């Protein structure tokens, strides 16, 4: 009996539930506006995040240290610049007045023909490059608008010659074989002939002194010899006349 009641009456049915929507599909991308009452509550309960306010006076302060991040590309440029400083025998620094792109190109071509590179680097890059090197002093006066010319050879005359064609480029100073020189000194240096010429001139001077001594010492003997020869000739001629 108990079995019958258990199976027949107390049987537990587990209904299979399946939700089915008889109305239209919900458009997720364009949902319907909620009911006004609900919309009100939604608007009230919407979270509001206050923006971090920076006072105007503090706006430019690098408070998070973001600006101090070193740019790897800038480091590459700085290294390249330092290498140029080290490898060049002549470096010219120019103040650049207002110039068009065409004029820059012309200047670049003329310097290139002299095997010089006509370049411009920013102040920050230069500062990065010369920090802790003998060229550190450069960063103090490298301001306003600048141009630089690097030459692996000591062509001061050529540098000044090209410079004459561009009045927009004002020569400020130069580094000649690692020594810092002003414009006036550079002009003086340009007047000095190159080392080979100077050496040849010195050898010539030394030789001339030696040869002068030799001629002075042998002049009397030579004179005597020539006179004797003349006398011999005279004596030889005389008997024939008789």
């Amino acid at each position, binding site marked *: 009996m108990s079995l019958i009641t258990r199976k027949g009456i107390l049987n537990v049915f587990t209904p299979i539930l399946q939700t089915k929507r008889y109305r239209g599909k919900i458009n997720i991308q364009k949902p319907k506006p909620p009911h006004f009452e609900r919309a009100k509550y939604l608007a009230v309960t919407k979270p509001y995040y206050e923006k971090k306010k920076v006072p105007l006076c503090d706006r430019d302060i690098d408070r998070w240290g973001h600006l101090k991040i070193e740019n790897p590309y800038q480091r590459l440029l700085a290294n390249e610049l330092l290498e140029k400083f080290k490898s060049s025998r002549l470096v010219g*620094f120019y*103040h*650049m*007045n*207002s110039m*068009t792109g065409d004029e820059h190109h012309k200047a670049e071509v003329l310097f290139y023909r002299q095997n010089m590179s006509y370049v411009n680097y920013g102040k920050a890059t230069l500062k990065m490059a010369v920090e802790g090197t003998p060229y550190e002093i450069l960063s103090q*006066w490298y*301001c*306003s*608008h600048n141009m630089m010319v690097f030459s692996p050879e000591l062509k001061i005359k050529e540098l000044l010659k090209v410079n004459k064609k561009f009045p*927009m480029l*004002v*020569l*400020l*100073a130069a580094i000649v074989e690692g020594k810092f020189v*002003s*414009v*006036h000194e550079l002009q003086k240096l340009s007047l000095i002939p190159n080392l080979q010429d100077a050496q040849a001139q010195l050898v010539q001077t030394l030789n001339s002194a030696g040869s002068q001594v030799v001629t002075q010492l042998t002049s009397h003997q030579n004179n005597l010899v020539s006179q004797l020869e003349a006398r011999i000739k005279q004596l030889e001629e005389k008997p024939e006349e008789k």
Partner: protein
Amino acid sequence: MSIYFSGTFTRSAGIISAITKELKFVNLKPVKKIEVQFDPFHQNAITVRDFLHFITSAKVTNTNLNCKIKTNIVCDRSEPQIKIDLIDSGSVKFLANNLTVLEIFQQFNKHISSQVKIEEPISTVIPIKTKLQKKLKK
């Protein structure tokens, strides 16, 4: 009693904008020669160098093509200076040690650019006469 508003409604656009604003009024017509002398190693040489860069721009130099701009580089730590020779007579000298570029341009416009007389456009339009005016002339 209310306090009157004093100040600007807009914020300044910056020093560069102020300089470009002054540059629009720069006129080199009364100027014969500008001689800029500076020592590149002087601590305040940047002012004169910036001035030189701005004054040599095509827009400014086109106002007087006969005006010569000469640069004199010295190496004696002397004060940077700008000497402006005028066509009429006399010259103006700026000792730029304690001046900013903007101040130089402001003074330049005040004393030099202001000398230029604005030419009035000559009207070529013949005034139209009414019939009554024509009759009266006859």
